[in-house]
């Protein structure tokens, strides 16, 4: 009796077992890591698309239904009116202002990497959340024919930002979409 007759694992056996576990665990965890990363990417893309769609729809609705004239500065007046005559065009990478049917003015402008709504009664309000960065913003108007109303073209790149600097460069972390639309003013 005693310790001699007892069967137990040898050192080699234990080492082999640990080596096998050491091979399997990293594989399992790396798969889970990729899964997690992919979910984060989907979440970001979703957020970016949601915010972009919201921006486009709100700008489209206000411009299409309420806009009477287009201006390059605020407050809008006759001297800064744009695209009111045939074959005229105007473009900006920062802002454009509009007058609605009640002679109230409003505008959209790019400030601190976000698109903001501004009007006579309120200070600029950001239409996107703080995690979103807008770049390559361009808003322009044109009128081709005297019998057709002006149209406003809008384009921007919308991107998800993880930190303030918004400096992610790895492709698996970036969520970026490009938006472009052209709106014909119906109330011109």
């Amino acid at each position, binding site marked *: *009796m*005693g310790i001699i*007759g*007892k*069967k*137990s694992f040898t050192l080699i056996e234990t080492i082999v077992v640990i080596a096998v576990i050491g091979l*399997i665990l990293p594989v*399992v965890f790396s*798969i*889970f890591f*990729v*899964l997690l990363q*992919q*979910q984060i*990417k*989907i979440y970001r*893309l*979703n957020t970016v*698309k949601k915010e*972009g769609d919201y921006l486009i729809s709100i700008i489209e609705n206000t411009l299409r239904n309420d806009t009477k004239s287009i201006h390059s500065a605020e407050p809008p007046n006759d001297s800064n009116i744009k695209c009111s005559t045939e074959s005229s065009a105007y473009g900006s990478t920062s802002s454009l202002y509009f007058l609605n049917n009640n002679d109230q003015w409003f505008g959209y402008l790019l400030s601190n990497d976000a698109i903001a709504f501004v009007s006579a009664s309120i200070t600029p309000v950001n239409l996107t959340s703080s995690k979103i960065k807008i770049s390559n913003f361009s808003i322009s108007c044109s009128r*081709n024919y005297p019998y057709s109303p002006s*149209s406003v073209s809008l384009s921007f790149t919308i991107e998800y930002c993880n930190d303030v600097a918004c400096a992610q460069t790895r492709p698996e972390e970036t969520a970026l*979409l*490009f*938006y*472009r*639309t*052209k709106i*014909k003013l119906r109330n011109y």
Partner: protein
Amino acid sequence: MKKSPGFSLIEVLVFVAVLSLFFISAVTITTFSLRNLKIQEHKIIATRYAEEASEWIKQEKEDDWEIFKSHSDTYYCLNLLNWDVGACTSYFLGTPGFFKRDLNVSRSGNPIDKITTVLTVSWLENGVPQNVILKSVYNLWE
């Protein structure tokens, strides 16, 4: 002191078999859901491309109906948002190029007053074609 019996070979084999079954199923489920997530990601981007092209077609229609209705009943490749006749031959939309965007135009009425378009953004997911389809109808009076 009582001698402890230890495991027999059969017991260890059964245990390892059960454990490996569990691991294999877990990994299978995970890779499956990973593949699904990848498809979801591409679908979001493809939907964006489809909407972009749909906006562009609407513009074309609003800009000039006469030109718009003069396009023939055929396939157009809208990868570059131009009226390029013929279905797209390669997937080069996006960075890196991964999608293609085809438009099928069919006109009806005499004179033509209704144009039906079917926009297809497609891509290859591990060799399996996937697509997002947007159908729209354009009228002269709208």
